[in-house]
């Protein structure tokens, strides 16, 4: 039986890696991939805590999170495609039209 804090530690590390990826990467698609890492870390936390509390609610929330992540990935990638068509580059530094 693996103690719960092992899973929570792993989840925290994955979340930090995902956050670092969102800040560090200069490529829109890799930023979206890092967001997916963060969502997975959260899923792991939900399932782990749900199991240790003995309910099935953790897995149900994970089900919804996966669905929302799929929807968000689809729309995000469609946005990336239309942005690429506009500017021919995928670096976030090129899209500065809203800066002051």
């Amino acid at each position, binding site marked *: *039986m*693996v103690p*719960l*804090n*092992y*899973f*929570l*530690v*792993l989840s*925290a*590390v*994955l*979340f*930090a*890696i*995902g*956050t*670092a*990826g969102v*800040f*560090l990467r*200069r*490529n829109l*698609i*890799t930023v*979206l*991939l890092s967001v*997916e*890492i963060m969502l*997975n870390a959260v*899923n*792991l936390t939900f*399932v782990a805590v749900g*199991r*240790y*509390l*003995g*309910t*099935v609610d953790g*897995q*149900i929330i994970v*089900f*919804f999170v*996966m*669905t*929302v*992540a*799929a*929807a968000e*990935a*689809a*729309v995000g*990638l*469609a*946005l*990336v495609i*239309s942005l*690429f*068509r506009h500017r021919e580059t*995928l670096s976030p530094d090129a899209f500065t039209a809203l800066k002051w």
Partner: protein
Amino acid sequence: MDVIAFYVFGAIAIAASLGVVGQRNPMHSVMLLISSFGALAGLYVILDAPFTAVTQIIIYAGAIMVLFLFVVMLLNVPREEPAPASLAGMLGPRAIKAAAVLSVVMGAELLYAVLSIAQSFFSAGHAGSVSSVANIGQALFTKHAFAFEVTSILILVSMVGAVVLAQKEHR
């Protein structure tokens, strides 16, 4: 036995995620993320959640990542150049390094928060049996039926939105 499996899958997940964040080639990043998802599915199996594990593979590794792969191939995403140092103002390498430091700090804070919870909280949980798909289905369609229906509308909306956004311009 479980603990060994946990260490193996955890190591794969962390190594693959570091690879996703560190790799310059976006195709390799996507493949590394797929292996990270596979490791997470293994962790779900250790947590007695086989349905979640299989759903993770089907939805994340099987559908969302295929979508990412198609977009990477469609846009012919080149290898990423290192961050340009010539942009004035906020976006310079110093700011990016600061962001990396911030995320490490956040990770350290999370670890501290997790490790300082009293041990009694963990031992109080009862080990549930293998949650059957029947239980999940029951809860999903009775207690959480409203969220389920709203999610289906959400997927429909995002599907229509994605198709409209990615259309070629009709000029």
